[in-house]
């Protein structure tokens, strides 16, 4: 019944109609992958930004130019303990500082500085460069710290110390997340536009191929809406077929990538891939595509017929 539908217009002869499901399948596949990519990137960004919010880092310069670095660090720690709203203040161990700078200094830092000055403490050099002392600060939950005032007091206690507020970073990451969504939206909109153009083209071709039948339907007393409905149903059916295949392939691709990510231990094997709301986006894709195709076909037929006669 669904496979061979009886229509007044013999659509099964249309070459454009045969291609439409394939084109829609490709378009929907690309949209699905773009959306999945945006969801994944966005998830990663929000994980980082939630890890960053509520943290400060104080950097105290060390080395021969700052012989009192150790005292300064102790003074800053004492200051922080007295400051209300500070949950935890912790001096990063040397090994961790080395790990943080390794991407910029390479293994040199570990090799030279680590062995030569292992026992001496914080002002040791890394590959000839002085390693700063880093203090990791977590604000108490819900506390609102005036970070500028804090930075000023820190700088008085330890001249040359720099207070970095990660809230700024978190703000930038939120901006990044927004632009990821914007790019995904633009990609999906462009794919939608390409699909609309394809449906317009296929519908116009159909109107040309079937102009004799359409002429007869008009003579028998068919309104343009009746003829448009035939084309609408055809567009709906063809694009729905393509869209279902496209979504299935996109979801398959997502599962494949997630599986690879699990094997690479980038995320736990049992982690949820998407939230139900995100899955709903995928479930809606074929319906949305079919609706867009239907409306496009309707408008194309009505406008073309009005111009034709």
């Amino acid at each position: 019944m669904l496979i061979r539908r009886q229509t007044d217009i013999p659509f099964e002869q249309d070459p454009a109609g045969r291609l439409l499901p394939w084109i829609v399948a490709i378009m929907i596949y690309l949209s699905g992958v773009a959306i999945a990519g945006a969801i994944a990137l966005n998830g990663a960004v929000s994980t980082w930004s939630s890890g960053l919010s509520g943290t400060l880092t104080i950097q105290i310069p060390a080395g021969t130019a700052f012989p009192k670095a150790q005292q300064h660090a102790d003074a800053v720690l004492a200051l922080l303990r007295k400051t209300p709203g500070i949950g935890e203040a912790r001096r990063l161990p040397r090994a961790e500082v080395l790990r943080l700078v390794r991407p910029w200094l390479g293994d040199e830092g570990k090799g030279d500085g680590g062995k030569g000055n292992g026992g001496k403490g914080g002002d040791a050099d890394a590959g000839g460069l002085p390693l700063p002392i880093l203090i990791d600060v977590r604000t108490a939950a819900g506390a609102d710290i005036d970070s500028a005032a804090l930075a000023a007091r820190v700088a008085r206690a330890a001249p040359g110390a720099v207070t970095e507020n990660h809230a700024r970073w978190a703000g930038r990451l939120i901006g990044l997340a927004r632009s990821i969504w914007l790019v995904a939206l633009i990609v999906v909109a462009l794919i939608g536009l390409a699909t609309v153009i394809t449906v317009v083209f296929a519908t116009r071709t159909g109107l040309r191929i079937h102009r004799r039948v359409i002429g007869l339907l008009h003579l028998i007393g068919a309104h343009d809406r009746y003829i448009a409905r035939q084309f609408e149903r055809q567009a709906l059916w063809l694009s729905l077929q393509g869209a279902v295949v496209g979504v299935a392939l996109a979801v398959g691709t997502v599962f494949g990538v997630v599986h690879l990510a699990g094997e690479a231990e980038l995320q736990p094997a049992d982690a949820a891939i998407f939230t139900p709301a995100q899955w709903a986006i995928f479930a809606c894709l074929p319906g949305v595509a079919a609706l867009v195709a239907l409306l496009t076909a309707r408008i194309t037929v009505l406008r073309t017929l009005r111009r034709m006669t």
Partner: protein
Amino acid sequence: MRTDLFDGEKPVVRFDQVGVRYGAGPEVLRDIAFSLEPGSFHFLTGESGAGKSTLMRLIHLSLRPTRGLVHLFGRDTATLPRDRVPDLRRRIGVVYQDFRLLDHLTAVDNVALPLRVAGARGPDVRNHVSELLRWVGLGERLAAKPPTLSGGEQQRVAIARAVINRPDLLLADEPTGNVDDNIGVRLIHLFEELNRMGTTVVIATHNFGLVDRFRYPRLDLEDGALKLIRTPSPPC
């Protein structure tokens, strides 16, 4: 539906000084003026190329006159908005000289087309259509598609399609051209049946045997002009 047809006994069709030409060609019809009263029955005669099909196209609004006025069911067709045309056409059944059946549809679906276009659906439609096809002698070919039907069979499908809606006006262009005389007579009887129920009938034909036998008034086209030839009322 049919009541307004008799409102004030407006003519079903009225032509005023109608002239028509195809493109830049000569005037095929000129100064055509006539009217068809509701419930009338006419033959349309004239030799090949005289303009019979052209006249039918004008009545059915598939051709616009180059000059003059065409009134249909009391409405001036020149000022008729495009979206009102289908409603008028649904009141007219047309048997085209070249049948114009849809090759991909069965006989039943072809005949059901005017009903479908008008929004009718369901098993009633099918029964009604099958019954009519049986009546025109195609009971065995209900599911056949036009390319597998003979010329005369296609013609009868085309006639069934034209009358399935019980139109107010029936235009039949050479409806008996491809059938032998006894089927031709049977088809004219079908048209008379419709006519008795109120349908206005115009039959274009070359078949003077039929014209003489049924003795309805004749609209005769000659040199682009139309004249009415009244004949004695038909035998009972």
